[in-house]
């Protein structure tokens, strides 16, 4: 059966369960990291309402953790990741900075962006991670980054992480086309969670799958899902290998978020999906499957203590007053080619007026 969208994936899952067999040490590390990220998000969901201290939109990615962890298990430090607004899983996988995440969400100056970006715009330049709240914009930026690597003969790759909703914009298809004609090292990392905010893929595209549209531009496409671990891992690693060889690749990962689009509260009342749909996908969740298989009964969540400790440290920090808004927006710095940017004041005073509209030769 050709699994290329959520309907066909659902049919498959109704017939069979994927098992977690033959996991190696590296796979256990991946699962543990993904469990940790899920627990961070579960805790955020509680703390958001309990404390009412996180005063910024948060887009949880519960259910979508594995692709981020697998991707970053194989990326290099110098590889750029431009991520969508649902940033927590990718941020933690790429940067490993839980404390900087919490401080950022709480608006503290110790945050990844001194508390000015919040959840959806968080970035960490040191580790080459950049998220943005306007989803397709990051895709175009990733293209420029990959193009720069090629121009500089560097072996870095760039990853554009986006949901299928990003593909509604013209910029998205400009990006796919340009990456093909210039043959640049980029992964278009599509986390297709079925919904662009609240609208179903099927309402927005006639084509059965996004990959098939993308492939018509001449880009190599891979399609996988977050319910079949071995396939997911092998396809993500394959996409990295292709990009590392200097080529663009489009990987579409069919996934599902159990968490709401935004905020911590149940959003089924928005009417775009119901809890039985959520439960269906949740019943095939790989992290739950992993816990059941390997951690068995009396499961003691060892992560919570660390998470709460980090959150409390961030919570206690004081807010910092902004001293200069200008320098936040402008560096006013120059490359030191001229010691001081200067002008010769006298030069233009005796304007020997020359003929104004001399025809331009071009």
């Amino acid at each position, binding site marked *: 059966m050709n699994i290329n969208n959520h309907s066909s994936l659902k049919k498959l899952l109704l017939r069979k369960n994927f098992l977690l067999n033959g996991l190696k040490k590296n796979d256990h590390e991946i699962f543990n990291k993904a469990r940790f990220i899920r627990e961070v998000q579960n805790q955020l969901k509680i703390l958001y309402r309990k404390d009412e201290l996180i005063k910024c939109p948060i887009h949880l990615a519960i259910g979508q953790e594995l692709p981020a962890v697998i991707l970053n298990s194989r990326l290099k430090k110098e590889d*750029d990741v431009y991520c969508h607004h649902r940033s927590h899983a990718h941020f933690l996988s790429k940067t490993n900075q839980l404390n900087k995440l919490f401080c950022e969400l709480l608006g503290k100056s110790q*945050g*990844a*962006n*001194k*508390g*000015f*970006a919040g959840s959806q*715009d968080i*970035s960490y*330049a040191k580790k080459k991670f*950049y998220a*943005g709240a*306007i989803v397709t*914009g990051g*895709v*175009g*930026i990733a*293209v*420029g*980054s*990959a*193009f*720069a*690597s090629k*121009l*500089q003969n560097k072996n870095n790759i*760039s990853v554009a992480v986006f949901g299928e909703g990003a593909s509604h914009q013209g*910029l998205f298809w*400009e*990006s796919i086309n*340009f990456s093909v004609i210039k043959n640049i090292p980029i992964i278009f990392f599509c986390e297709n969670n079925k919904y662009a905010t609240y609208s179903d893929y099927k309402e927005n595209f006639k084509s059965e799958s996004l990959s098939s549209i993308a492939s018509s531009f001449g880009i190599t496409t891979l399609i996988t899902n977050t319910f079949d671990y071995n396939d997911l891992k092998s396809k993500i690693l394959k996409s990295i290998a292709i990009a590392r060889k200097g080529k663009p690749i489009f990987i579409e990962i069919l996934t599902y978020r159990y968490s709401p689009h935004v905020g911590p509260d149940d959003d089924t009342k928005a009417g775009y999906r119901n809890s039985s749909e959520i439960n269906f996908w949740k019943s095939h969740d790989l992290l739950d499957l992993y816990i059941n298989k390997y951690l068995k009964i009396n499961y003691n969540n060892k992560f919570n203590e660390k998470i709460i400790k980090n959150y409390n440290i961030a919570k206690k920090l004081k807010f910092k007053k902004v001293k200069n*808004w200008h*320098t*936040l*927006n*402008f*560096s*006013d*710095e*120059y*490359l030191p*080619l*001229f010691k001081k*940017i*200067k*002008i010769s004041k006298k030069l*233009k*005073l005796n*304007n020997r*007026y*020359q*003929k*104004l*509209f*001399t*025809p*331009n*030769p*071009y």
Partner: protein
Amino acid sequence: MKKIYSYAEAINSGLDYILKKIPNSVIVGQGVDRPGGVFGTTDGLIGKYSNKRVIDFPICESLMTSSAIGMANRKLRPILVHQRIDFAMYSFDALFNWIATWRFKSGGTSTLPLVIRAIIGRGWGQGPQHSKPLYPLLSGIPGIKLVMPTTPFDAKGILIASALSNDPVIIIEHRSLYGLKEEIPVDGYAVELDHERIRNIGEKLTIACIGDASNLILKIIEKNRNLKNKIELIDLVGIYPLTITKIVKSLKKTKKLIIIESCWDSLGVGHKILNKIIKECNEKKIKLEKEPMLIGLPESHIPTSHYNENQFYLDENILLKAIRKKL
């Protein structure tokens, strides 16, 4: 050494200097690699610096501007050109949501050294979709500097300074100025971005120009020699951030002000600048003798045919009348 360059040649010489001196700089835009590219401003650069430095781009302005962010973030220093500012409108997302906010939302930890040249296509029948003076839309956005050089000397100096700047800079060029000639240094030099250029010294009336009008005023002065010592002509090269020190200093002497803007009053930056000038004059206890005057373009789109276009723009008669009235 100095040489007579046209405005277009001055930009070409500036780009050449940048490519020579800043090894990671690249020039990106539609047709930058063609002979006579971008009104001659990129002519011949491809032969000297190869297609890895002088990069043609498909007709997708939105991606072009977006991708420049990625390039700048990968330690390149891109200099983009939008052949018409009207085309740059496709890149509003990249400009306002990403470039402008980049440093701020990084908490000041990351900057984007990139330059965007945008050309206002005045002259020889460019019409309503090729010559709109849309620069005020790009002015006053924290995170993006906006400059508008109007002489070959400033065009080159501002371009080089912009390429050296670690902040994003948009340079507005008027196509009508490309043939304007001036003797300028052959070697590289830089001009401050928030610069006011005094182009004539006079005692009776301060004329501040935003855009390409100052050349027309000089032409009027040339023809009416009695105005030579009366008009103090100042070009506002830096539009945002804005410095008005020289204008205020000049008003202390002349006490009369005309602002001429190459845009519609309804959209332009003239009102904002006037406001700032008045505020500063009040603070410095400079009392203006006559009410300041703001002259903009007729509030209409711009006709295509050259003959109709000539009716539209400010001409010597209108300006001379205004000058006589305020003197």
